[in-house]
């Protein structure tokens, strides 16, 4: 069952995700700079920041426990695992058997619980506030994400991401209204989960509305580098999940070696467009008050449930 090409695809995909994820972040930031009439720091800026942080000596607060030091590694590992199971280049991924769509949500939840615990660990006002808000966003976004994945699973009769993407790719011209709802819900959830405007602002500090940045205030040096890298990976994985579910074209199918070569440019093109759209959304919308976030995410949740209901009503 496990083929050599599968392992090759798996390793390529993992390596690609880990290495390209900061580039995607750089691209989004660059697009945003262009859209806002700034010149921007360049595509490679995230790599420079990571390099700088890795070389620096981390300073850890006196009250921090080992959990605080462990968390960046756990975060990074979780996101690597998530990147390994989402079919971005090929669907023939051996590791996909170990974790399906529900487990993907579980991985994100695991990472979220760890970063929140680490934020509480030092015992600062900002840290606990960030943790509380992150968990709030989490408990609203996670069910919505799960329902979006369920809708896709119901269409494909499988929760395995590989099988789902294969099935969806083969039904190119079928129209699924449920997927349209799911797509909108997924976009909203992705914005919230990746600490993007309008729910959170990745470019701010010293603001009472920050969520993700409030949690990682105490991190520095290599720990901060790993946290930032994990955040880039999360954005990359979310983008790939969305692209795989809603634009599943160009992903290499099982036993399709030539497809693997074509898959890379297809993925890069899709990510470039997706990143630009993300920058556009961020530029066009304003950051909302934190207490509007439940409404925003509640809407996403309802849209997702509506999509699933529509699937039951129209598509069976």
């Amino acid at each position, binding site marked *: 069952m496990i083929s050599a090409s599968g392992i090759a695809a798996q390793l390529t995909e993992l390596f690609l995700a880990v290495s390209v994820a900061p580039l995607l972040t750089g691209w989004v930031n660059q697009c945003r700079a262009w859209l806002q009439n700034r010149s921007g720091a360049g595509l490679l800026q995230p790599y420079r920041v990571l390099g700088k942080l890795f070389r620096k000596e981390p300073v850890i607060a006196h009250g921090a426990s080992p959990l605080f030091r462990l968390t960046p590694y756990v975060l990074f590992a979780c996101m690597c695992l998530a990147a390994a199971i989402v079919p971005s280049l090929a669907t023939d991924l051996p590791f996909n058997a170990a974790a399906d769509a529900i487990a993907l949500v579980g991985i994100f939840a695991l990472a979220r619980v760890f970063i929140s615990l680490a934020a509480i660990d030092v015992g600062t006002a900002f840290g606990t506030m960030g943790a509380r808000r992150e968990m709030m966003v989490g*408990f609203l976004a996670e069910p919505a994400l799960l329902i979006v994945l369920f809708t896709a699973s119901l269409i494909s009769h499988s929760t395995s991401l590989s099988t789902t993407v294969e099935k969806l790719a083969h039904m190119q011209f079928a129209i699924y209204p449920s997927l349209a709802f799911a797509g909108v819900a997924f976009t909203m959830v992705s914005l919230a989960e990746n600490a993007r405007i309008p729910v959170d602002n990745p470019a701010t500090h010293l603001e009472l509305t920050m969520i993700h940045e409030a949690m990682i205030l105490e991190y520095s040096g290599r720990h901060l580098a790993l946290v930032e890298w994990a955040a880039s990976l999360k954005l990359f994985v979310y983008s790939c999940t969305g692209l795989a579910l809603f634009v599943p074209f160009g992903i290499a199918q099982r036993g399709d070696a030539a497809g693997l070569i074509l898959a890379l440019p297809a993925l890069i093109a899709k990510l470039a467009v997706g990143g630009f759209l993300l920058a556009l959304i961020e530029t066009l919308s304003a950051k909302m008050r934190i207490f509007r976030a439940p409404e925003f995410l509640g809407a996403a949740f309802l849209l997702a449930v509506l999509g699933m209901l529509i699937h039951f009503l129209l598509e069976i």
Partner: protein
Amino acid sequence: MSAGQITPLAISLAGVIAWIVIGLAGVFSPGNLRLVARYLFPAGALAGLVVAAAGAWAIAEGARTLVLPLGLPDLPFHLRIDSLSAFFLLLLGAVAAGVSVFAAGYFRRGQGTPPGLQCLYYHVFLASMALVLLADDAYGFMVCWETMALSSYFLVTSDHRSAEIRRAGFLYLLIAHIGALAILLCFGVLQGGGGDYTFDAMRQLDHTPRWGGIAFALALFGFGAKAGIIPLHAWLPEAHPAAPSPVSALMSAVMLKTAVYGFLRVMFDLLDVKVWWWGVIVLVVGLTTALYGVVFSAVQSDMKRLLAYSSIENIGIVYVGAGLALMFLAYDMTALAALALTATLYHTLNHAFFKSLLFLATGSVLHATRERALGRLGGLIHRMPWVAWLALVGTLAVAGLPPLNGFVSEWLLLQAFLFTPGLPQNYLNMLVPVAAASVALTAALAGYVMVKFYGVIFLGQPREERLADARDCGPWERAGLVWLAAGCVLLGILPVFVIRMIDEVTRPLLGQGLGNAASNWWLLAPIQPERASYGPLLFLVAILAAVAFAFLAVRAFYHGRVRRGAAWDCGFPGQTARMQDSAEGFGQPVRQVFEPFFRMRRELPGAFDSAPRYRVVVEDPLWYWVYLPVARAADRLTGLVTLLQRGRISVYLMYGFITLLFLLLFVR
């Protein structure tokens, strides 16, 4: 059963007798803490292991029966061990072993009831729970059920000098008895007027849907009162904090499960008719309970109340699974019923392990700090590393995170929802996505609750000066916690073996087990590997490998230096422990988002208050909507009865005279 032959039933009975003997041994020297703690509780743990072993053995064996020469004349106790009772016996024995080892180090001198009596109640409680699982007639079942309720009542009120605890115990006893009445009536309906109260006779009978429906309603109410479904949950958050921690652990982990056992026994074994809307009712009740439990859990500021509400949530999830299984079974979809019932039983087992682990951890914290309020804890990971790291396992498990055990049962349950399309009723197909969404919401909220629980107790800065004196737990407590934490991990990473065991339970009940479509022992694939699969062991190995790789790579390419400094906190200098979120503060988003659930009273300071006070009281509205009206009605009714009670002997003589006349006139 021939005499002298060793059977699982005989072994489990031996374990039960051992528990009773150990309990009685404690009575002979009630004040002897050393005897009780060092010898009797460890011996009880051994007996627990024996019971667990008997359960594990009996699961694969067929059903065996035994008639005990005890009880009333012509009404002996019937015992029977089949795979369902064996599964719950295994749960009881395995959890009791861990809790008893912990209890050996837990009980101290000078806490209400003397240790010898505690030991008696504790072991009688264990023995009666085991006998509830083994009973094969309604009479024996009710006797053991009541013994269980009474022994646990005495355990809850161990610290009986406090009025609050006596009140909690009374509430518990009251609801337990109302539930027991319903169960008694349920058995009465089930035996169908034949007068034969053995379960075997009930199994043989053909019940009509109407009487079956009445039996179902009584079973749902009666066992639900013990399990803590909405709106019969009110005793849980009162009784669990009142009891000593090992007792709360046993009550939450095992006693609630005996109620689940009773419900499953009646619905899947004794009652032969199934109607689809019973399943819907159980499903809706379960969903409401789960959501209600988790939302209230998020706003608690007492750590044991928080866990008690979380138990309500988990029981709700168990009922959701049972409801789904009933619904599928009513439509003869046995494969799906097996999936749902497997998820139910798996979650039952999981909850027993992680909730007892967390209750015991709160016990250690309580001993070290004498503090139950979350608002006066914090930073204990530095003082109590063993408890903190073991509690972290339980926390992640309750939050339903992979690769621990809570995730497996939630995964199975969600799979059961996903394979629902194909129910013959369209409305049911519509209900299912909404139900799946609520389960997903509940699971996500459980994560929130657990971050609050763990973060406020173990992380951050200590909120009180004296927390610096907190010391880690002793070797006995540590051993008990390690046992339960190991259970959480193993149940999480080796689900295939557990499901093979559960298959032996579902097969006799439903005629079909779940099986494992992937023939690998490390890959869980309930239907087909292409449809859904989950390999937690591989998952765990991959995470650990990635952590190790990142750790080593960073050190290889850069450096491993680290410096300690003051917390940054955006450069704010005057940082104190009081600036962290309190338990109430951490619950604030839930209070805001789920406001209609609560009955809240707020006291806000005015703009010019020189001594501003902010107070918010969150209460359970069901208390006002259900309990108080019922209590008032009961009060009024008893008020009517007192009209008869005149307190004069002549009036009572007149009552006797009228009764006599009445009897002479109408009875021949």
